[in-house]
């Protein structure tokens, strides 16, 4: 479907294809939660080459290297089984990517145990789903950002 121009994966590497999904990579920026006097904030760092250890059971904000999107399919961004087997959650039960959005996706990372992440690692997978019915393209909210985006509720 990528060849038909119906979906965007940029950059694309055929070795990252799975039977039903594509493995995306972790981008260089990471948001670290800071509990300030007036509430929660995220402090952003560049991930070092040697990796960065996530504290257990804390949410961090990352982003994909790839611009991912489609005007034809809905998307689901989830973790990889190889990292799920090590206890790394990707996306905190909000895995649905709306039809019409195309950008570097913000990732929510939560590790069950302390966990070392590296920039450029293949961290999750995206699958594409056929829509039933008329498609109203999603062009608002978080859909145009490439850097990790903090919740608008903060």
């Amino acid at each position: 479907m990528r060849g038909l121009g119906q979906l965007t994966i940029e950059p694309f590497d055929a070795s990252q294809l799975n039977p039903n999904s594509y493995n995306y990579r972790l981008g260089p920026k990471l948001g670290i939660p800071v509990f300030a006097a007036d509430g929660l904030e995220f402090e952003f760092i560049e991930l070092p080459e040697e990796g960065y250890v996530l504290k257990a059971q804390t949410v961090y904000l990352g982003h994909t290297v790839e611009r991912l999107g489609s005007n034809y399919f809905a998307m689901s961004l989830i973790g990889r089984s190889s990292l799920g087997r090590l206890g790394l959650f990707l996306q905190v039960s909000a895995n649905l990517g709306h039809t019409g959005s195309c950008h570097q996706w913000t990732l929510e990372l939560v590790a069950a145990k302390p966990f070392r992440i590296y920039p450029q690692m293949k961290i999750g997978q995206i699958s594409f789903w056929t829509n039933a019915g008329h498609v109203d393209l999603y062009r608002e909210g978080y859909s145009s950002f490439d850097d990790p985006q903090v919740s608008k509720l903060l």
Partner: protein
Amino acid sequence: MILTGPTIRREVQSGRINISPFRLEHVTSNSYDLTLGPGFVRYTEEIIDPAKPNRYHTFHAGPEGIRLGQGDFLLGHSAEVLGSDHYVPIIHARSSVARLGLFVHVTADLIDIGSHGNVTFQLFSTLPITLTPGMRIGQVSFWKPLGKVELYRGKYQGSRGPRPSEVYKDFWSDTDKR
């Protein structure tokens, strides 16, 4: 498109879905209930590093089950062998188990088409919970793929029991600079 219970039953009978052992009473409206097997894996590393092999130990639970504390992370497995060359399985917790705060997978619910074996459950408990081999812990739904199918030939093919991660084997691909 998601398969209905009667279609799951029909496709198991025709051999296009592999669920073994198969019990009719485990078929639901849109899924099949999966049973917890006896084997478990616990990682013993202080810090999990996906670039390296992580040490773990394997153990079996007796009929009394095992107790998970709050925030525990273990691998378990389905008693069933599961797979399909025609549909994409997606695993879920049973809602009764989720209501007790237990995750049965860590956001990796998609099973590749053509992958056959015991399902490895990624068990994360947000509350203390006792798990007993033989309990119905999860469910699997089946989804129709769009386009040409290339079957799974990956490293977890044919799993029996809980399979720890082997991501260190291909953590950096040939195209990576380092």
